């Protein structure tokens, strides 16, 4: 009797260990699974609720960890969620994927969860990410350090003319669209009274719409104060205001693009902001500061169109 019990136990253990061994490999991402553009542009309505992330952690453990593992690093059943190609996707894209599922690849539909819970899951996904050799989250990850009340207080009273300024920047965006590396498009999501929702979206040019998940999106005035992939929030903002930047696979150039845009918009304040919050940018803040200054020169130098040049001169 005892021998049979031991034998069964052994078989089950071997089975379990076999599964463990099998799961050491991670399922690759489905590159054809891309959120539609409309879904990608959605922002997280819970972004201002710091307490919601804890719920997301619990939900992840309950709903997702059985396939993606507790740390999100994936298994043979499900891909690694810490990788940049996941982390660089917008909140809206992740929300859509959680909601929609991918039944052909075994990803269940989670639309049975209430929407807020799905957004909580997105918040937790942002907490996952690659760790560098020193145990810090890398720039491609979600290092939400842009949380400083003094700074945000400065931004809170965005002037009414911000909207028109934004339009000017849209025009300026044509300049970027003309550049070979990127396409830039801008959208005003809400009235200037809630200008915190104005966003710019960029994606690597020359790629098919199927790669829309690579888009970078940021708030016009705040984005430069947010590290890559980060979603920053503050309680003093209206509920629903959020902004984020993603670093497309195409890499640092997109960050530079963002950075340049900011430099053009907020001369003076830009540099003050940078000196006060160097950690919010890329790891070598001094280098970025220099980059900003040089970028402005570059922009003027590169522009072959006279009116474009005047536009930049005016804005900066």
């Amino acid at each position, binding site marked *: 009797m005892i021998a049979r019990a031991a034998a069964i136990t052994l078989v089950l253990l071997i089975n379990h260990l076999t599964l463990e061994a099998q799961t050491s490999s991670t399922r690759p991402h489905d590159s054809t699974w891309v959120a539609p553009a409309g879904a990608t542009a959605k922002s997280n309505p819970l972004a201002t609720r710091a307490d919601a992330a804890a719920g997301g952690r619990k939900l992840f453990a*309950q709903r997702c960890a059985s396939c993606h593992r507790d740390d999100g690093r994936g298994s043979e059943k499900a891909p690694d969620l810490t990788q940049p190609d996941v982390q660089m996707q917008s909140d809206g894209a992740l929300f859509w994927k959680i909601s929609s599922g991918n039944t052909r690849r075994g990803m269940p539909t989670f639309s049975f969860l209430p929407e807020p819970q799905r957004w909580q899951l997105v918040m937790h996904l942002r907490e996952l990410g690659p760790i560098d050799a020193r145990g810090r989250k890398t720039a491609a990850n979600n290092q939400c350090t842009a949380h400083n009340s003094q700074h945000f207080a400065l931004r809170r009273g965005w002037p009414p003319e911000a909207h028109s300024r934004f339009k000017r920047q849209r025009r300026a965006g044509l300049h970027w669209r003309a550049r070979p590396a990127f396409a830039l498009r801008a959208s005003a999501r809400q009235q200037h009274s809630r200008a915190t929702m104005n966003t710019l979206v960029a994606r690597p040019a020359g790629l098919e719409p199927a790669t829309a998940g690579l888009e970078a999106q940021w708030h016009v005035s705040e984005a430069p104060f947010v590290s890559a992939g980060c979603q920053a929030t503050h309680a003093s903002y209206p509920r629903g205001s959020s902004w984020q930047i993603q670093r497309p696979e195409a890499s640092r150039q997109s960050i530079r693009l963002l950075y340049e845009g900011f430099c053009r918009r907020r001369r003076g304040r830009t540099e003050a902001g940078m000196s006060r919050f160097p950690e919010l940018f890329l790891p070598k803040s001094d280098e970025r500061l220099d980059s900003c200054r040089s970028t402005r020169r570059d922009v003027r130098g590169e522009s072959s169109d006279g009116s474009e040049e005047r536009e930049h001169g005016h804005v900066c």
Partner: protein
Amino acid sequence: MFAIRLVALVVCVTFAVPALAQERAYFVTYDHYLEEPGNLEIAVATTTGVPKSNRASYTAPWLELEYGFTGWWTGELYLEGVTTRGDGNGFTGWRFENRFRPLKSEHRINPVLYVEYESLNEASRIQKEIVGAGGLPFEPIDELREEHAHELEAKLILSSAAGVWNVAENIIVERNLSEDEGVEWGYSVGASRPLGTIASGRECHVCRENFIIGVEAYGGLGSTEAFDRQNQRHYVAPVIGWHITGRSTFKASTAFGLTERSDRYLLRFGFAYELPVRGVR
């Protein structure tokens, strides 16, 4: 033997991974959520009927084994029985169902195709679906068990997620392969929602987010042979589901009979436990 079972159970439970069941609150209505691939759900449930006209009440328990073969295919095996007050009890048959989700991702309306084979006898009382017309037969259990039926059933399941609500509609057709009764029709519709919309950060068993409430309505419409409104059975049933732990769900429902042929009410309880048999930790 007991020791073997105990050891096996302990090992299984020890190495099972946490996964929250996607157990729906409905008893009859299906929505478009299938079992997660590699997960096995074991459920026990009962239907207790209190008929009209002073007939004996009955309880029909069933065991349900649901397995997610793939993301788009779930199979389910049912074993069912019945016990009638003052009339004994018995095994009433088995069913094997398959649900297929043809669309890859979520849409406004999500169709699922359902095909089921049933090998039952006339004593079957679980009423997982109601089709056709006419009331339940109330002959002695032993007599009813002699009458076997092989039936093929199909459903078109349409389900939507609307905000926090799930709305599902099932159109049911059934054909008795043992004798010619025509094609029988039935329906079920349901709407449910979780009580809490935001998950709290703490582990909790009795908190709003773990409860689902809803209502479902179901009934038979007749058959191609006869459409007799007088003999139809219709029920409306509030339902409640409780995710007790990450893997277990309890649900209950009281269905109220709306027509003369319906039982006065059907009291249903169910408990489901989900464990991944092909998964990771």
